[in-house]
């Protein structure tokens, strides 16, 4: 094997034939080409004529070179050139493949498998048996791989059967297992490593070296698996943090959050500083969206280490507090509402209001302080709400003590006062240890919490069961009762400092949090129960049923959990509540494979195997041979085609081949059913708004160039928001849409153009896309007039809040949308009726998805007199440009959820409809009446 960089020759001695090239050169020069054959009637006159000089006929230089090239190609082909040659299998004896199949191998798994298979192939060629040992402990449901020496096909099957595991490797154990196999020595051990260091690395390598020789294959440091740590749930946002093994230059990764159905609901970018191994970022999303995040993944890394499952702890639940905002009273800082709000604010989304306001929204839990004690109809409504799964937490106080209120979990002792005088406390009571069945179990009780006053429960047989917290004297402090699917909880003291100092302690915050967590079930962190396995991650970070035999986690698992075959990372708990145990943070922080003992060879994990180039060389030689044949015929005049005709024919062939190559990718598109060209007739008033006939003096007149650029072609426009990423997506989106329009319709838009609301005249563009971003400045009065003119002259403004209808049409409105349109004269909007022209202007559509699906479009309320009833403003929320944006390869720039590519197609169809609507107005609606119109005309 002769190796020249990426090229090597399997039978290099053949190359010695190249020495013969000069001889061939000399021979070829000596041998004249065959004479041209000419039939000639006047040959009698030629007979006897000889050229005076006797110079031998020379072969033309180019032909000589061609033939030399031909011979060279043949010789090189015989020498079997190999691209990316694999080194000869080193060492002696059987090949032992030690394969890292821990979580960190998942991102490189297919490459590792291919590499292992190639090694097996080489061993097969060298007639050496193969043994395979994986370094991670086997999963419970794995078929035990065959140990010992394997035949090549067995080895290949074993390699294919291996899967990365969602736990770390145990290299020392793997090497020990190898030694137990009693393989014939010496053996050649090839260790396909995942590139991560481990404590037992040195020892394992040394023991492996004893078997014979050791070669360690490692991936590029930039391809070593990344780890995503558990995020910290800070006030409003999630702080995500990722680790990498080596600080090898800047790197940018994306972390995406998806909900339990796989729809991507949040995305953020993490930047590693050049030498840092840690990167952090925050995911800042509206609360409702954040609560939907069920897992976080590093994009492009499918491994258990790059996936983090989220449970209740990371969600902000909507919490309602009954009462009035504290400003209503004279002493806001003493109000119960104030204490509750301050305690919950970092962890929950709080709404303050009366019963009707709270029950009108989705609330996980409603807190009722004493001074907002519900009336009797309130109680009935609240009771219904509890039955349906709500959690009502009431606080005691003077009012509750004074009233007869049945909306409590335990019967309270009657009396106009909470038996204050009757109680014989020597001193204020402290809290007793929480019962193990209580949701508060495990919370530490600060020693200085004292309760001065409380309401007392009527003793009864069930009071003990319903007591979640009690005082040292045994009287219940917190009682709770399950009603229907929800809970009714009573705190037997006040939410402010009136009756106790509990509200001042950290315990109060913890207890409220536990109660908030109750909103999905009792089992929370730190409960004294065992956690049954519910769902488990596999090595690639896919969530599935846990393998049989997975053990439940002990109550203290929060502190002790380690990913192991019997306890894989995943969700533990039951259907109503699960706790997520992730791999990130539970394994050693990643580090690059450390130093290895001397005598260990290393190699890179490589994607590509060797490629035998000899057939390409042979093919090239064959083509040259044919070419030479044709040339020889031409030189002898035996081809019927005269030279220039041949030249023309060759040119035609080259052009035809070129065209075929250029056209072939388009075939794919051509095979798709092409929709018919749309009616091109345009309504006069719906034509692209033309520049004003006489420029108004107040309007800055754009240069003629700009006017021509904007109007020579129909151009889709987007509003420049100032946010570079959003603008780029808008541009790419409209470009993608334009591509679709060109391919499917007779609309041939030019390149999309970004418009500045302040400067550019919008009337030049029939369709303007306006993504709403929080940071763009509200349009000035002049810009608002510009927008107004655009709408009045028949243009369409398409606003996209890009927030998946979280803020649109659910009672709330998008604050940014409101802010941006404050100065604009917006006509009244209505939800788009199902039979609107937009649903049939080109395609028949039932819904209008973008990057997200669902929700409704809001359009200008129909007014037949202005612009023929064509809506001038359309508001959507599905990030349409994101769905339309295509990369150069024709793939979407962003994933589309939840419908995937199908939904993207629908998004494109909607875009086509939209542009058709902008260009043809109500034409399609009118076309429905065509029959009537024709009949009337006939009359």
């Amino acid at each position, binding site marked *: 094997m002769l190796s020249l960089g990426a090229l090597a020759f399997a039978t290099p001695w053949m190359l010695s034939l190249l020495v013969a090239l000069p001889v061939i050169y000399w021979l070829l020069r000596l041998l004249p080409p065959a004479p041209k*054959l000419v039939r000639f009637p*006047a040959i009698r006159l*030629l007979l006897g004529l000889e*050229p005076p000089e006797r110079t*031998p006929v020379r072969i033309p230089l180019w032909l000589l070179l061609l033939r030399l090239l031909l011979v060279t190609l043949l010789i090189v082909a015989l020498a079997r050139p190999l691209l990316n040659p694999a080194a000869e299998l080193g060492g002696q004896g059987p090949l032992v493949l030690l394969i890292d199949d821990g979580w960190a191998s998942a991102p490189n798994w297919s490459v590792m498998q291919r590499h292992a298979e190639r090694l097996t192939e080489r061993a097969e060629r060298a007639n050496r048996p193969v043994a395979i040992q994986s370094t991670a402990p086997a999963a419970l449901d794995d078929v035990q791989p065959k140990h010992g020496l394997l035949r090549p096909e067995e080895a290949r099957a074993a390699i294919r059967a291996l899967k990365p595991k969602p736990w770390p490797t145990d290299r020392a154990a793997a090497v020990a297992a190898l030694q137990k196999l009693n393989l014939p020595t010496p053996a050649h051990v090839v260790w396909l490593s995942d590139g991560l260091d481990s404590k037992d690395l040195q020892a394992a390598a040394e023991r492996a070296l004893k078997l014979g020789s050791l070669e360690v294959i490692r991936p590029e440091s930039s391809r070593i698996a990344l780890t995503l740590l558990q995020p910290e749930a800070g006030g409003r946002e999630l702080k995500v943090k990722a680790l990498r093994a080596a600080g090898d230059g800047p790197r940018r990764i994306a972390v995406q959050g998806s909900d339990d159905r796989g729809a991507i609901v949040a995305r953020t970018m993490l930047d590693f500083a050049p030498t840092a191994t840690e990167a952090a970022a925050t995911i800042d999303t509206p609360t409702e969206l954040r609560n939907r995040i069920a897992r976080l993944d590093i994009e492009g890394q499918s491994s258990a280490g790059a996936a983090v499952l989220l449970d209740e702890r990371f969600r902000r639940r909507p919490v309602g507090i009954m009462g009035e905002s504290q400003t209503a009273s004279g002493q806001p800082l003493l109000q119960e509402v104030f204490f509750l709000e301050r305690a919950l604010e970092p962890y929950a989304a709080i709404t303050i209001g009366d019963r009707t306001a709270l029950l009108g929204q989705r609330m996980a839990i409603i807190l009722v302080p004493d001074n907002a004690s519900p009336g009797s109809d309130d109680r009935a409504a609240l009771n219904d709400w509890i039955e349906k799964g709500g959690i009502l937490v009431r606080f005691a106080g003077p009012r509750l003590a004074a009233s007869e209120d049945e909306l409590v979990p335990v019967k309270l002792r009657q009396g106009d006062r909470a038996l204050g005088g009757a109680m014989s406390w020597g001193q204020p009571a402290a809290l007793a240890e929480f019962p193990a069945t209580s949701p508060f179990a495990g919370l530490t009780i600060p020693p200085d919490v004292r309760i001065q006053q409380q309401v007392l429960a009527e003793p009864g047989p069930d009071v003990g069961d319903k007591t979640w917290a009690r005082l040292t004297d045994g009287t219940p402090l917190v009682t709770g009762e399950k009603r229907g699917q929800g809970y009714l909880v009573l705190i037997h003291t006040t939410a402010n400092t009136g009756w106790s100092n509990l509200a001042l302690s950290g315990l109060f915050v913890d207890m409220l949090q536990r109660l908030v967590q109750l909103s999905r079930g009792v089992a929370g962190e730190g409960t004294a129960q065992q956690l049954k396995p519910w769902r488990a991650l596999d090595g690639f970070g896919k969530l599935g049923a846990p393998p049989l035999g997975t053990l439940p986690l002990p109550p203290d698992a929060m502190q002790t959990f380690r990913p192991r075959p019997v306890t894989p990372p995943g969700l533990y708990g039951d259907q109503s509540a699960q706790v997520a145990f992730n791999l990130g943070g539970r394994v050693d922080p990643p580090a690059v494979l450390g130093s290895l003992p001397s005598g260990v060879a290393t190699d890179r994990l490589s994607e590509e195997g060797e490629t035998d180039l000899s057939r390409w060389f042979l093919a090239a030689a064959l083509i040259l041979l044919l070419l030479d044949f044709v040339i020889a015929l031409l030189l002898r005049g035996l081809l019927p085609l005269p030279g220039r005709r041949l030249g023309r024919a060759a040119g035609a062939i080259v052009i035809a081949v070129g065209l075929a190559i250029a056209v072939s990718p388009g075939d794919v598109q051509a095979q798709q059913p092409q929709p018919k060209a749309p009616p091109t007739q345009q309504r006069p008033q719906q034509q692209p708004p033309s520049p004003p006939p006489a420029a108004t003096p107040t309007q800055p007149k754009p240069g003629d160039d700009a006017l021509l650029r904007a109007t020579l072609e129909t151009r889709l426009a987007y509003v420049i928001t100032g946010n570079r990423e959003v603008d780029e997506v808008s541009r790419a989106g409209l470009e993608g849409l334009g591509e679709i329009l060109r391919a499917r319709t007779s609309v041939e838009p030019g390149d999309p153009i970004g418009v500045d609301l302040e400067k550019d005249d919008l009337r030049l563009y029939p369709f303007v896309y306006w993504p709403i971003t929080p940071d763009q400045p509200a349009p000035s009065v002049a810009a608002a007039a510009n927008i107004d003119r655009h709408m009045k002259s028949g243009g369409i403004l398409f606003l996209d809040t890009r927030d998946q209808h979280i803020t649109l049409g659910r009672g709330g409105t998008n604050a940014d949308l409101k802010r941006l349109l404050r100065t604009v004269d917006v006509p009244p909007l209505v939800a788009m009726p199902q039979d609107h022209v937009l649903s049939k202007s080109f395609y028949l559509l039932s819904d209008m998805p973008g990057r997200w699906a669902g929700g409704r479009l809001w359009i200008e309320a129909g007014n037949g007199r202005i612009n023929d009833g064509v809506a001038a403003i359309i508001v959507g929320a599905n990030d349409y440009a994101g769905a339309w944006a295509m990369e150069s390869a024709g793939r979407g720039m962003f994933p589309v959820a939840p419908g995937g590519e199908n939904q993207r197609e629908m998004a494109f169809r909607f875009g086509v409809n939209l542009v058709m609507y902008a260009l043809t107005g109500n034409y399609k609606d009118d076309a429905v009446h065509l029959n009537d119109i024709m009949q009337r005309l006939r009359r």
Partner: protein
Amino acid sequence: MVVTPTLTDAARLASALPPLLVAAQRVATTVMQGVHGRRRVGQGDAFWQFRQYRPGDAINRIDWRQTAKSRAVYVRETEWEAAASVWLWRDGSPSMDFSSGRSVPTKKMRAEVMLLALATLLVDAGERVALLGGGDRPASGRGVPRRLVNALTESAVLGANASVPPQVPLPAHGHVVLIGDLLDPLESLEAVVRHYAAHGVHGHLLQVLDPAEEDLPYDGHVKFSGLEHEGDHTIRKVEAVRDAYHARLVAQKEGLARIAQSVGWTWRAHRTDRPPETALLSLYMAMADTGRR
């Protein structure tokens, strides 16, 4: 070998000939527009002019009616209308089946077109025409060209495929037109010419050559092969012998001109890439000149 004329053969012949004839007619018509009669006094029926009587004129030639109209005595002269007999021949050897390019007709085609066009012209002028070696007596009339066409395609004509004209006895004062590439050795051609000249026959030689034969437009190593089994000749560097070839061709032409001149015949050269009308007109005028002598 017995050739069985089949229907297809007949159809092929019928379809091939008229174009030849049409081409010849077209050439002849073009030439005819520039030629009108013999324009000289001689024996004939057509009135030519009145002329005052001169001593020596035969009395029976006096036109008494014209003389009676005036005082002078007038003699009636008629246009010379002596019909000459013309024997036409074209080289039918395989070497004539050659053209150097698609746009150039073969020498044989051009020779036959010229022959037929000339025949048409002559017949129109009242001459009698026959194929040399055909055995027919010279005839006149509009049907003659068609008959000539048939005769050309039959191989019954003596020396139909020879490159040298046959030597047949011809009456004196006849005319012979020989069309061919005339590349055979000068001696054989001279023998033919002398044979006819000795019988008092006037003659015209039209040498039809392909442009390739004139220019030898080949380069490099070329193997030439003749069309009449002359064998091959390979020249390593054609461009080096081009001048020598030209010298030989010129010598051949000069030899032909010399032979023609020595017996009072004419010689013309014609290239197949040139229009045939010029050569035909020149040949026709030359024949008129010969007749005047």
